[in-house]
């Protein structure tokens, strides 16, 4: 028990590691604030493109979505981070992570939003058009608000996954929370920073998990 406390919940070590962990936490937050809105915007573009009647555009969108959903995110990240420099494209760690996450998350958000748009009855679109709204106005003011509302649980679930996924940025040496924890572990020869990082993730993400669990029960009960 004492060994457990010394190894995992050591407050002296925590005090030493705290500045590093805090810097890592801010980086994770910054990363989240960059990749979630970017991915959502990309997903919206993907979803809108998949509603066109143009067969070619739809085929390209399905190909894009399936391709980037088939890659594990870490594989995509390594391809971007280690492959692109050979083309003389240097994005740096943050840029590589942002690009890889954009490709990955925009496919997932796109798939969710597409399902949302399809769940809005056609009559809504026809009624909106017949009152004189343009196609763009119909999409923005009538279809999308209902579409998004219908898939809120999936959007939250995906956002939670994206935030958790930011931890893979540690692999390309972006100093986010997990990377900071490992660095602090190496400096202190003690696992407390890793446990502390886990607790920070837990405290920040638990509310989302609770919220989601409530939504899921309601959703499956309404099948």
């Amino acid at each position: 028990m004492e060994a457990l406390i010394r190894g995992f919940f050591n407050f002296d070590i925590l005090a030493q590691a705290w500045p590093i962990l805090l810097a890592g936490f801010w980086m994770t937050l910054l990363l989240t604030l960059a990749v979630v809105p970017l991915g959502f915007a990309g997903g919206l573009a993907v979803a809108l493109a998949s509603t066109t009647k143009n067969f070619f555009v739809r085929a390209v969108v399905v190909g894009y979505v399936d391709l980037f959903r088939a890659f594990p995110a870490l594989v995509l990240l390594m391809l971007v981070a280690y492959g692109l420099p050979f083309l003389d494209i240097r994005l740096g760690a943050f840029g590589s992570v942002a690009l890889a996450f954009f490709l990955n998350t925009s496919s997932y958000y796109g798939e969710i939003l597409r399902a949302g748009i399809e769940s809005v009855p056609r009559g809504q679109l026809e009624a909106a058009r017949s009152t004189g709204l343009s196609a763009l106005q119909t999409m923005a003011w009538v279809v999308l608000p209902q579409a998004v509302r219908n898939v809120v649980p999936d959007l939250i679930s995906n956002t939670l996954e994206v935030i958790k996924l930011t931890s893979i940025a540690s692999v390309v040496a972006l100093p986010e929370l997990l990377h900071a924890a490992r660095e602090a572990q190496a400096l202190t020869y003690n696992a407390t920073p890793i446990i502390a990082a886990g607790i920070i993730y837990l405290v920040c993400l638990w509310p989302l998990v609770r919220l989601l669990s409530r939504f899921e029960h309601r959703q499956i009960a309404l099948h």
Partner: protein
Amino acid sequence: MGRFADTFLNWAVMAQYAPRILEGTWVTIRLALAVAIAGIACGLFLSVLRAFRFRAINVLIVFAVDVLRALPPLVIIIAFYFALPTVGVRMSAWVSTWLALSLVLMAFSEEIFWAGILAVPRGQWEAARSTGLSFLQTLRDVVLPQAVRLTIPPLTNRTIAITKNTALGAVVAVGEILYQAQSAYSFSYNPSPLLLGAAAYLILFIPVVCFGRWIETRFAWKR
């Protein structure tokens, strides 16, 4: 173009490392199957246990599931592999990755199965019990068959997402596809093995993603 092909599609390098990637592919397949089987089996077990509604046990299950859903999988893998040895618990990289991902899948599938069990109307329970079936018989022969059907689409998608996380094993040097590709890349200082590894993932997972899409339409929840 010649330089591009030399860099990214260097046949000599690819041929040299192809056997390694193939070896990694088998490791990925075995790891993914082991995770899927252990995770779903434990998740089903926990959801059945939860159906007995022992208060203390249910509080524990909900807590464990929430924790496992809130923590990034990479953090769990790293905690198992780098933090546990400091208190004397040692496991190999393969076991760390397998155990971490199985626990995560267990948490998600428990939630999904439990939501499915709740979705079976109370009348089904009451009718089965009144015909003289025991609690266990009711659960096994009446409730679970109906519950499991509801859970197939979300469970399939979640399983695919989590088995893709086997790539995270590369971080603790499990010899799966990404690890092999990455170490081949470091040895040859040529990104061709990364592309080869990416291709291996696509060959493995594009059919799986398409299967998930098919399952989703086949078992679509009717609103």
